[in-house]
């Protein structure tokens, strides 16, 4: 803000506090849930303050608990999820940024058609084409592999659209100046465009990492080996219990643990945000 206002800062604080209270409330519930007894949670009697079972629950979750019911230690599932999430995020960003670059800065036949071809992939949810997509993955021998987990999810119209929007705001003068300096399209991309895009890339990385991290349906279908199972599948297994006792506290604890890597990504990404801001100050 430009003006220096003594009470002017009250409004943002208020709005942000209410915002956080509402938006982060379910997360708060998950944390609270992991500290309470299963019975209290099942009977809908969970209070809003933490309980006393936190330590034993987390111990159970990390050391013994989920290892027993999902047969795969939490650590290995976290690694599976990590590889998948990073692979998807990096892959999506990489192929979208170059596509958007081409569509915005180059003139070639069927330019807009290409954009629409990429864009339409948003319009048919994976649930509808799950059988044929699975068959293709199977035919290409991608089952039970990281490629199978990552490749089919890599086409991202969202990222392409975002980059397109951003590239459209790049002033013509910048490109001209770069050309005068003797830079070709590749130099321009790496020396000028990429640094300017850092904020957007950071934001996208957070979103895409989380998207990859939280994938359920596709990994479930394409992996059969226990050591390929992701943490989200593990969580669902604890929650989705039929005919037996649901261990809510362990489920919540696993969910909280599963949120830690994405949170770490968010915190790290914030640094890039600030950096990006400084660099766009021209």
């Amino acid at each position, binding site marked *: 803000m430009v003006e220096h206002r003594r009470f002017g800062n009250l409004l943002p604080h208020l709005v942000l506090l209410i915002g956080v209270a509402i938006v982060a409330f379910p997360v708060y519930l998950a944390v609270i849930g992991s500290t309470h007894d*299963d*019975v209290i949670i*099942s*009977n*809908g*009697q969970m209070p809003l303050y933490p309980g006393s079972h936190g330590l034993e629950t987390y111990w159970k979750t990390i050391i013994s608990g989920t290892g*027993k*019911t*999902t*047969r795969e230690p939490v650590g290995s599932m976290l690694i599976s999820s990590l590889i998948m999430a990073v692979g998807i995020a990096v892959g999506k960003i990489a192929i979208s940024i170059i596509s958007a670059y081409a569509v915005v800065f180059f003139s070639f036949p069927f330019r807009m058609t290409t954009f629409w071809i990429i864009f339409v992939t948003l319009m048919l949810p994976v649930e509808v084409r*799950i*059988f044929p997509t*699975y*068959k293709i993955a*199977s*035919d290409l*021998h*991608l*089952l*039970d*592999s*990281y*490629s199978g987990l990552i490749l089919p999810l890599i086409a991202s119209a969202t990222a392409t659209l975002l980059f397109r929007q951003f590239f459209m705001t790049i002033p013509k003068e910048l490109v001209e100046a770069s050309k005068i300096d003797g830079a070709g399209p590749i130099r321009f991309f790496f020396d000028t465009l990429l640094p300017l895009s850092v904020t957007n890339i950071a934001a996208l990385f957070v979103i895409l990492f989380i998207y990859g991290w939280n994938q359920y*349906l596709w990994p*479930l*279908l394409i992996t*059969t*080996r*226990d050591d390929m*199972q992701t943490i989200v*599948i593990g969580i*669902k*297994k*604890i929650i*989705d*219990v*039929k*005919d*037996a*006792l*649901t*261990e809510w506290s362990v489920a919540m604890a696993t969910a909280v643990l599963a949120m830690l890597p994405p949170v770490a990504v968010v915190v790290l990404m914030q640094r890039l945000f600030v950096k990006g801001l400084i660099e766009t100050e021209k």
Partner: protein
Amino acid sequence: MALRQFGAAAAVTTALAFAASPAHAVTEIQWWHAMTGPNNDVVVKLANDFNATQSDYKIVPSYKGSYPDTLNAGIAAFRAGNAPGIMQVFEVGTATMMSAKGAIKPVSELMKDQGETFDPQSYLPAITGYYSTSKGEMLSFPFNSSSMVLWVNLDALKKADIAEPPKTWPEVFADAQKLHATSPTCGFSSSWVTWGFIEQFNAWHNQSIGTKANGLDGFDTTLDFNTPLETKLLENLVELQKDKSYDYSGRTNTGEGRFTSGECPLYMTSSAFYPNVKVNAKFTYTAVPMPYFPDVAGAPQNSIIGGASLWVMGGKSAEEYKGIARFFTFLSDTDRQVYLHEVSGYLPITKAAYEKTKESGFYDKNPILEVPLKELTNKPPTENSRGLRFGGMVQMRDVWSEEIEAALAGKKSAKDALDAAVSRGNQMLRQFERTAVK
């Protein structure tokens, strides 16, 4: 030169890293299931125990999500040419599985081909009947079965001056209203609305849900449960819903906590709710058989099972079939059935196992565990109570639920709702009939 070799080696290594794991010398049999929590442990233990008894076959269980997710995975895999050997499918998926000749291998056929001793008579008819043809040939292997019972909060009943748990529907309605005074938000509630109020209700009263033995005898079945009796049930529920003497808790079982929390003193749901009740209910409770209308001749008849069975997929190798057949024999072993039943609450599938458990006095110590069995074996099943088999059952239940919800919310009369449920259901049945492989 060295660089190129290195590059090639790197490429090969990477390719290998991405390729599927190499095949084993032992015949591996994939078993896809939907079991979670402690039941997952049971599945794993069964597989490990079987694998330990011999070295030719290895059962590899994989959790593939909820029942619908597992079924979808199986369908996707079949269409891609790599179905698992064994797949656990919930009871409502039976019609879909058996209508696809070639997609599955009937269990009775499998056992006969492999020369395993297999006596259909040794199995409990109420349980296997659901998964058999009308001629009694078992199509799939019952695995985890349950029935529907009425859970009763005895402390709450005492407080409302009700002497004993209700046995008939009129008693339930009266008790619900009495309980309403002490439990204003809910006197009586239920889960699995269509299983309880349509499927179980009609079987328990020896009424048909559809023609042709509820579809067991043919795909040209038509629904016919929009009877005065069914209407009477629904009208009573609608009336009680008005002041929450009966309070609807949803289509599935997400509302079950209302019983263990003490909010709903009478709750009708699966017998498989028991492990949760044991731990979470902090009051004296019991489970009694489902209520019935005493003026209906023949009621109570017997209940229908819920749960899932194991299907053997088609197109697998002869070696795999040998292993699967041995596994099913392993599962049918009496002592193993007794162990399964006592540890997991799954109902035993053989008469011998039921008898043995009875003799051991297990039910004297755990009377609640016998209630579903008593319901299932109450009387020999009739055409109306052997089970049901309607195509597209998952969607069918959604449609029936929608209509019941409309009635309970006061949007339609009970009769109109039931008529709509039947006519919409029949449309789906005719569509399914078209696709059934002849």
